[in-house]
């Protein structure tokens, strides 16, 4: 494993935070810019804006999946899914708090949520390390990271469904109709599945990151279906783009699997009688 060049945690952290926040903010800023220009571009920008939220969500999924990988490597004793669920649990609390508390200063919402999630994650990580005594050196850092990525995933995909990240808007379009549960669960699986599927002695980061991209993209497609109910055309764009990205990332993952395996052979059907 050591001879393979890996992406550093900091690099992925930057991809997650910058990519995630950029996507989330574009859902708000593009329609705003469109209104300034006016005419047809305004309609186009307004239609494509929500899709960027989902793209930001994918960046956070990739980051979160790598954070899960780093901490779950030590063996949590409870299985990898538990860490995805706690990430989403902390993420959703922080997301709701961040988006609601800022009231009219809407733009500050995602940042406040991100900071809140980091603090919450840090505290849970600190307790896990020092009170429960899990003896995992990267626990505090990774718990902070997964909580932060969890909150970006929630806000990003919610923004893709609601059109922007104003809390009142998200409550009507994401919470009231129950889509938030899809965001919560599918987002959690997107984040925990890559390591859960790839773990083992021959686990490689590159393969895992492509799989994370594909789970993020399939989440985007599912969110696209939800968004067609709430936003119409924008949802269709999210759906189609999500499926496209999924095919690309899955093919990459597929290639990596073939590359890493010593050989891939067909075993044929199980013989009817024992030889």
């Amino acid at each position, binding site marked *: 494993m050591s001879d393979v060049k890996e992406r550093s945690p900091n690099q992925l952290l930057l991809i997650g935070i910058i990519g995630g926040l950029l996507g989330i903010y574009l859902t708000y800023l593009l329609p705003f810019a469109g209104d300034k220009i006016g005419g047809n571009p305004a309609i186009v920008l307004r239609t494509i804006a929500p899709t960027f939220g989902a793209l930001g969500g994918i960046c956070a999924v990739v980051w979160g999946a790598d954070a899960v990988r780093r901490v779950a490597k030590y063996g949590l004793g409870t299985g990898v899914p538990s860490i995805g669920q706690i990430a989403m649990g902390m993420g959703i609390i922080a997301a709701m708090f961040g988006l609601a508390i800022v009231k009219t200063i809407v733009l500050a919402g995602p940042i406040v949520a991100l900071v809140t999630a980091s603090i919450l994650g840090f505290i*849970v990580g600190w307790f896990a390390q020092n009170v429960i005594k899990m003896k995992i050196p990267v626990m505090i850092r990774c718990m902070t990271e997964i909580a932060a990525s969890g909150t970006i995933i929630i806000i990003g995909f919610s923004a893709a469904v609601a059109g922007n990240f104003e809390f009142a808007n998200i409550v009507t379009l994401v919470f009231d109709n129950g889509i938030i549960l899809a965001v919560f669960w599918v987002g959690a699986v997107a984040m925990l599945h890559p390591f859960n599927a790839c773990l083992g002695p021959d686990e490689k980061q590159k393969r895992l990151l492509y799989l994370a991209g594909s789970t993020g993209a399939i989440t985007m497609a599912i969110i696209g279906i939800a968004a067609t109910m709430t936003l119409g055309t924008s949802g269709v764009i999210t759906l189609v783009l999500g499926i496209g990205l999924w095919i690309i990332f899955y093919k990459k993952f597929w290639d990596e699997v073939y590359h890493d395996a010593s050989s891939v052979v067909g075993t044929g059907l199980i013989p009817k009688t024992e030889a």
Partner: protein
Amino acid sequence: MVAIDPTLLTNILLIGLSGTLICLAVHFIPVGGAPAAMAQATGIGTGTVELAAGSGLVGLITAAYMYTNVENAPMALILAAGAVGSMVMLASTMFSGGLIYAYGVAVPFASAQVKKDPITGDRQDTYISKGTQGQGLPTICFVSGIVGAALGGIGGALIYYVLVGIYGQLISATSAAAVAGVFTLGVFYVNAVVPSYGVGGTIEGVHDPKFRRVVGKDIFTSFFVSILCGLLAVLIAGGISP
């Protein structure tokens, strides 16, 4: 900014208390994890979080149903609805799991942690297969699980009851229920995972020596984290405009 008034503090404390109840609940539920799925350890063959959350969320649904359909329902009624919902869910899980262990895998139910079942007094150690940590769900595990489910259901219902009361005054009933429900979900997952790290994935129930060893520090952690969640939940109300 909201001033510190007694109702607010009570609400935060109640959410902290419910988080602690959920944490305690996890310790009561016989979780066997992967070894139990192969009938090599006592308990239900899945993870702590899945069981605690599965039963707790059913409790949340029954509690929410009671809240919506009974006008001015007293707190006790909501909590009871949550507890019963959770208990039914976990009992049916353990019962169907037990059927599979008994008639599918064909193992005698025995606990590796105690020599005699504290409830029935039946001898346990002679029935344990070699190289395993017990199998199936002995009576004590079943009872312990039911108690745990009740605690978890009460915890989930209590958070929901407190939050829906706060948000209900600010936004429409549907939105309040949705926001409160999702927040409860978040607190529930955090408090189900934290103790599962404490017990290290598997626990047989209240009779397991592990119970006494870890319950203290887990509860301390959960209480602190839940109080923090409670604080955030109450502050959200300040940001929701009617």
